[in-house]
Structure formats: structure tokens, C-alpha cells
């Protein structure tokens, strides 16, 4: 019996299995090139041809993050980016820019077609971006994207950060003042859709009891606390029927803890990733546009 106790103790002490890697789903549908409109694999949402973007306004390129190539997609006119308002869209944990291309196109129709520039990246390990997904790399990759925007002349007052699901982590991280990875730009407004509250809430929702997250994960995603230091206006979307990140424990908590100007849209019957579809694309885009143009 003593041997069994000792074995179990040592197994626990030296074990390295955690939930963390299961959070990232970089290539459920692998690609060898980005095909955008010609992509025939699974996509997050489908949009009609009326949302198509002129080819001249679609720019695929790579950024360099400490030697790792990060693929980026800018939708808009690069000649006017200095004076445009840009939405940096931080996508979720699944797949790549082809998967999110319809969403990016949809966002590019906010206000009217190409009213705003849209930048999105594939995090390390996602799509064709090099590297391995990790929480720190999420933050660092988005910092790289912000650097690019800054180099192009985008300023804080014309930047909106939008985080969907996993993307809410880097979006909040680069909006609050305590980040250890420096944020080259600080967005003037923040949009969150189906956000995580924290790794703690994720674990405790599944456990039903107040189990420490350290039992299962080393993730330090903590939007619920970081949002307290975000003074920028917040627009939050969350599906009432979200059965992955429950609105009541995730979205509502993030919303509650934000103390600045804010608006929450709780979408009945919407689940985790169909909020725009259930809302209706016109209504969804109108909410975003109204939020962006609203004067403080």
C-alpha cells in the first residue's frame, strides 16, 4: 500500500498532462494555401455574394514574429489605411483565415462595403502560420499585428479590437494596462463576442463545484479581471443558448466587470458561434457600426 501511495504521489508530482493543448484547434481542416472565396472546406458562417470584397481590397501577407511567419489578411485600401478606422479581428480557436473568411467579409461590410479596414491573422500554428499555439503566442502574435498597423499609420483613436471566443483573450489583453507583452497600439473601442471569462470559470462550470483551475490547466486567461482595467467602450455579443461558454457565467461576468461605457447584446436562441446569423447580418453590422461611430 505504501508503494501505491508513493507511486501515485510521484505520478501526480511529475505528470504534465493538462487541458491546455486541447484549447487550440488550429487545423481541423488543414490547408496548403489560402483560397478565400475559392475555399470549399468548412467555414464558420456563410454569407451571400452581396458581401463579396473587390480583389484589389484583399491583401494576404506575412508578418514576422521573432522569426516565425504569421499570415495576415487585410481587407481594405492600403492607400488610405492611414486615415481609415480599422477593426483588428481576433478569431476563435478553430482552423484558420479560410474558415473565418466569410466573417471577415461580413465585417468588411460594416457601415457600407469597405467602410472600415479589417485585419485578421492566423496565430502561430494556425493555418500556414509557423510556430505552436500557446496563450503567450496569442498575445505576442496580436502584438505583431498591432505593430504592423502602427507602422502603416493607424492610431489608437482609429483602432477597434474585436475578439471572438478564444480571440477575446488577446483582445482584452491588449486593451488593459497590465500586459507584460507590450501593446504597440491601444484600441479606442473593444468588441467581444462569446468571450471567455477565465480559465477558472471554464473549469468550474464543468466541475459544478469551486475547483481550482490549476487542477486542470496552466492557462492564465483572465478576461473577467483584466476587463476591470479596460476603460475603452465595450460592445459585447453573447448567445443566450451558448452551450460552450455559458453567457451567464462567462459573458455576463466580463460585462459586469467592465466599468466604462458599454452595451451588451444577449441574443436569444444563439449558440456559441452563430450570433451574427441568428441576429441577422444587417442588425449585427448595424450594431457594430453604431458602436464605432458613437461619440464618447
Amino acid at each position, binding site marked *: 500500500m505504501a508503494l501505491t501511495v508513493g507511486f501515485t504521489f510521484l505520478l501526480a508530482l511529475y505528470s504534465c498532462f493538462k487541458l491546455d493543448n*486541447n484549447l487550440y484547434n488550429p487545423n481541423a481542416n488543414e490547408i496548403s494555401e489560402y483560397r478565400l472565396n475559392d475555399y470549399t472546406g468548412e467555414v464558420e458562417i456563410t454569407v451571400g455574394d452581396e458581401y463579396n470584397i473587390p480583389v484589389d481590397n484583399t491583401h494576404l501577407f506575412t508578418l514576422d514574429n521573432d522569426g516565425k511567419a504569421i499570415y495576415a489578411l487585410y481587407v481594405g485600401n492600403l492607400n488610405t489605411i492611414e486615415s481609415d478606422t480599422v477593426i483588428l479581428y481576433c478569431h476563435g480557436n*478553430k482552423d484558420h483565415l479560410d474558415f473565418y473568411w466569410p466573417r471577415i467579409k461580413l465585417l468588411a461590410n460594416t457601415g457600407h462595403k469597405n467602410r472600415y479596414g479589417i485585419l485578421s491573422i492566423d496565430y502561430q500554428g494556425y493555418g500556414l502560420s509557423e510556430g505552436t499555439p500557446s496563450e503567450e503566442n496569442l498575445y505576442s502574435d496580436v502584438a505583431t499585428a498591432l505593430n504592423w498597423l502602427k507602422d502603416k499609420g493607424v492610431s489608437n483613436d482609429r483602432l477597434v479590437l474585436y475578439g471572438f471566443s478564444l480571440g477575446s483573450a488577446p483582445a482584452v489583453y491588449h486593451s488593459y494596462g497590465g500586459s507584460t507583452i507590450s501593446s504597440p497600439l491601444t484600441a479606442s473601442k473593444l468588441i467581444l463576442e462569446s468571450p471567455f471569462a477565465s480559465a477558472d470559470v471554464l473549469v468550474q462550470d464543468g466541475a459544478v463545484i469551486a475547483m481550482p*483551475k490549476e487542477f486542470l490547466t496552466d492557462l492564465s486567461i483572465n478576461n473577467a479581471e483584466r476587463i476591470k482595467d479596460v476603460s475603452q467602450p465595450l460592445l459585447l455579443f453573447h448567445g443566450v443558448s451558448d*452551450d460552450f461558454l455559458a453567457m451567464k457565467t462567462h459573458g455576463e461576468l466580463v460585462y459586469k466587470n467592465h466599468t466604462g461605457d458599454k452595451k451588451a447584446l444577449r441574443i436569444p436562441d444563439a449558440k456559441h458561434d452563430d450570433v451574427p446569423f441568428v441576429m441577422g447580418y444587417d442588425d449585427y453590422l448595424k450594431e457594430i457600426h453604431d458602436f464605432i461611430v458613437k461619440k464618447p
Partner: protein
Amino acid sequence: MIKIKAENGIPMRQMLRTSLAVTILSIYACSPTRYVVPLEKGEKEVTAHFGGPMVNFAGASIPIPLTTVGYGQGLGNGFTAFGDLHITAATFGVFQTELGLSKTWFNSESKSWGFTASPRLNFAMEFSEFRTKLWPQLDGTLFKQIGSDRYIYGGYSGWFELAGTRAHGEPQPNQVLNNVHLGILLPTKARKYSYQFELKYIALGIDNQYMAPSYVSAGNSGAFGIYFNLKRKLTWGE
């Protein structure tokens, strides 16, 4: 009617749901009821438990393969002391153990019926931040002998959350998790070994719709669990 929660066909979310379920529940108890029938004074036994709550994974409903090993010793007068180690929890870097004492009352000299109460204490600790958790549990089980060393049983198990708040200071909504179980104890021919099959319903009344693990449940709350327990006597009673 048993409802299988429909998956939305996204394999990775299934993986995360199942991983969450495996890891959460490997830590959070989910073993069969211990020592429904007490050990005789001086009797010693080792046990191995397999099984867990049912989850949806890759289109199938499967019990989470949790593993626990344990030891029990009869103290006489219907008392059995026992302790367990959770092997699956250990693979996730959590040292988890439980210590308990069961007391059985029989209806008569024939011992054809009985009731066992088993309070126990669960303890878990992880080694990155040395966070710990303690939670008491109380089982009450009625059993009936149906043959030589064969028993059927059914009862209730309550898991108690001592913390009043959860993450970010939010109120802890559930202080007691209520579970029920039905099972059967069967000997082998050699009598040195016996085994136990148990069906549990875990977290009665707790809404499971909006949590990442995808449990198999009747309706939108709780989860079914299936368990198998193998026992081996080390020494016989006086």
C-alpha cells in the same frame, strides 16, 4: 427518456468537452459506492475501480475511463475503514485521496437486509501552485442479499462544497451535489475476488446544458455514470 445531447459536429469542441469531463471528473470523485456490505473484523481487501460519468464523444456515448485503487479493513461491529487513491487524477498532476469509515446496520441475525452509512473526506492537491481542495461526502445505501455473497443495493450520495464563492468572488451556486446509485455485488467462484457493477445518476437537478463537458443525461441536468469495481481479499475475517 434518456436524452443524448446533440453535438454540433465540431470535433475539437468534442475533444475539449471530453478532456474537460475526463479531467474534471477524474478529480471530482465518481467512483462506485464503497463497502456497501461491511468487511468482517480483521478482513482486508484491495479494490480497483473503473468507469465514470457518461459523455458524448465522436458520436458515441462512453463512460469516462477513470481509475481508482483502494484498500479497506474491517474493524468489527459493522465498521469498515477505507481509503482510495485516484490514479487518473494523478496523470493530470493532481494527488487525490479519500478516507472514509462506513457503518452498517443489519435488520436481523440473518443479515439479509442492511443499511450502510459512509461518511468520507476527499482531498486533492496539485503541484504547480499547490492549490488544494477538501470536500466531504456522505453515502447512505440500502442493500439486500439475493444469494450467497450476492447483494443488490441502492442509495444516495451527497457531495458537499464547502466554499461559498467560486471564481471572481461569484456566489457558488451549488453547495450540495445529490447523486443516486443502484448496483449489484457478485462473488467469483474462488471467493477471493468479487466484483461490483453500479449505475449512478450524478448531480441531480444541476443544469448541464451550458457547460463544456457533454454529459449523457436524462433531460437537461446531471449525468449518468457506469462503474465497475474489482475487489480482492487479502485476509479473511475472524
